[in-house]
């Protein structure tokens, strides 16, 4: 299968410091890739570089065979959607439907009004994320989980080929986490969207992702299926000796548990 996204030798940083370097991987349609790693490993920087919020210092991105840097910004936004980690910082409340509609902007341009098809796509996205009943509510009144879903609905309304999700499970309780990640995986599979998401929880990462990319100090430490990446050796090198890795008694999926330091 031809890769949807091809990353090679990618380096990026802020100011004088280089945060990530030598990153290379490929992602295919419908594939979910979870990026894990300790705080400060460069996960968000990687995601922002992939989403063209930060210019790469070296290396390249190829989207469906085209160098991403040469695509006009709006054409790129029709293929790649990014849902940021920080909750949306709207200057003032917007209705949920208006907020999700912004996902249509890259398709409709800056002047033309949304048409019937756009409104249908927005309605479908809200339906798919079960926020249709909230359409008339103001974004400021949403709970953390509802806001996450509104962000995802906006990304979905972009009809992207690739979704970049920064910590989609952050600040959610266990129930919401598993529900949202299940939904993301289902969307990837049913619509053939490639998903790259960052996440801290290994168990959830192993559950929702096809492959795991482990970042450490800005380098790609390991890349592969959850069982291959989450092994005793790798985890202990990156996170320290107090980690334990063992297979789940029922599913066989690797489970990573920390021991409290005395």
């Amino acid at each position, binding site marked *: 299968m031809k890769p949807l996204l091809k990353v090679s030798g990618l380096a990026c940083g802020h100011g004088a410091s280089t945060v990530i370097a030598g990153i290379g991987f490929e992602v295919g349609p419908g594939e979910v890739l979870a990026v894990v790693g300790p705080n400060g490993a460069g996960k968000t920087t990687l995601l922002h570089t992939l989403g063209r919020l930060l210019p790469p210092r070296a290396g390249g991105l190829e989207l469906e065979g085209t160098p991403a840097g040469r695509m006009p*910004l709006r054409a790129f936004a029709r293929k790649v959607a990014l849902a940021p980690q920080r909750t*949306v910082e709207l*200057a*003032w409340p*917007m209705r949920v439907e208006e*907020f999700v509609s912004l996902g249509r902007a890259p398709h409709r341009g*800056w002047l033309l009004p949304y048409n019937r098809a756009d409104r249908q796509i927005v309605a479908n996205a809200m339906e798919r994320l079960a926020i249709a009943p909230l359409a008339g509510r103001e974004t400021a009144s949403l709970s953390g989980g509802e806001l996450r879903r509104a962000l995802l609905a906006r990304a979905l309304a972009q009809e992207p080929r690739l979704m970049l999700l920064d910590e989609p499970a952050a600040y959610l309780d266990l129930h919401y986490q598993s529900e949202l990640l299940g939904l993301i995986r289902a969307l990837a599979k049913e619509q053939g969207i490639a998903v790259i998401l960052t996440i801290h929880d290994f168990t959830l990462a192993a559950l929702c992702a096809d492959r795991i990319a482990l970042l450490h100090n800005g380098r790609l430490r390991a890349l592969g299926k959850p069982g291959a990446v989450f092994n005793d050796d790798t985890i202990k090198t990156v996170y320290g000796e107090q980690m334990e890795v063992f297979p789940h008694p029922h599913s066989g999926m690797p489970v990573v548990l920390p021991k409290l330091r005395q």
Partner: protein
Amino acid sequence: MSKAGAWTRWRAGWLFPALVGLLGVAILLSLGLGAVKVSPARIAALLFDPGAASGSEATILWQLRLPRTLLAAVVGAALAVSGAGFQGLFRNPLADPFVIGASSGAAFGAAVAVLLGFDVAVRGLSPVPVAAFAGAIGAVSLVYALAGLGQTASAGTLLLAGSALGTMLSAMVSFLMISGEQPWLHILNWMLGGFSGRSWLHCRIALPPLLLAMAGLWLLARPLDVLVGGDDAAQSLGLPIRHARLAIVAVASLATAVSVSVAGVIGFVGLIAPHIARLLLGGGHRRLIPASALLGAILMVCADALARSVLAPVEVPVGIITALLGGPFFLFVLRTRGPRFT
């Protein structure tokens, strides 16, 4: 199609005709108010049969009150729309052409042009509005740079930078005017803003660029919507942020500059109108901008009518009325919404 979205559209469907009707009533009442009172019924009759008016009545209505009322409506609309634009640009609902110093910048530019020997009133294509435009753009850019590029302008920084710059520029305007030996009352009237003595000539000069600027900001509705969500979100939706910002600054400054050249410095309309519009219709700019325009027009026509009647036959500058109304409103918004933006 969602129910709630349909409800918003339905509400917009009756709100706009209601606002247009309200504006019509305000204009009708305003035409009748002043040193000589004319009843609304008589005005309505005269509007349909212009020949029926007696000499002095006709002059008062067609030559004095109609042009100034029309001008007040369009200047009010333009200031409101430019306020909505600046609020989107600064991502802060407290921004207003007056508060952020754009009006004072325009006044400074205009004053310099007047002192260099171009009169505002007489020449059709005078450089006064051009100089005002340059002044407004300069002031906005300075405040923008001070408040921090690309970030949510915190209320504190924005207000401090805007008011400091505004006060300084007003002082410079006063200084220029006094050193230019202009009559005091004339200066004061202009600094406080008003529509006294405005004629069809002023309308001819000011209406085309004001209407153009409003249409321009309405066309920029979607970039404004996208910018409200922050720079990262805007860029990931494919918006060329710098170009969008430049366009918004240019068009909103044009509206401010022409308004100031023709009516002086009038504050707070650009704050009140978009705020009410946002409460009525939500934050989406495609509806927010026309609704702000209508509300701004209604506010300004009423303020002008008040200005003519509270101390009749003496006229109060409109800027005093809007400041008396807008000041408390501003403090109210600062109190209820401000803390979130600091």
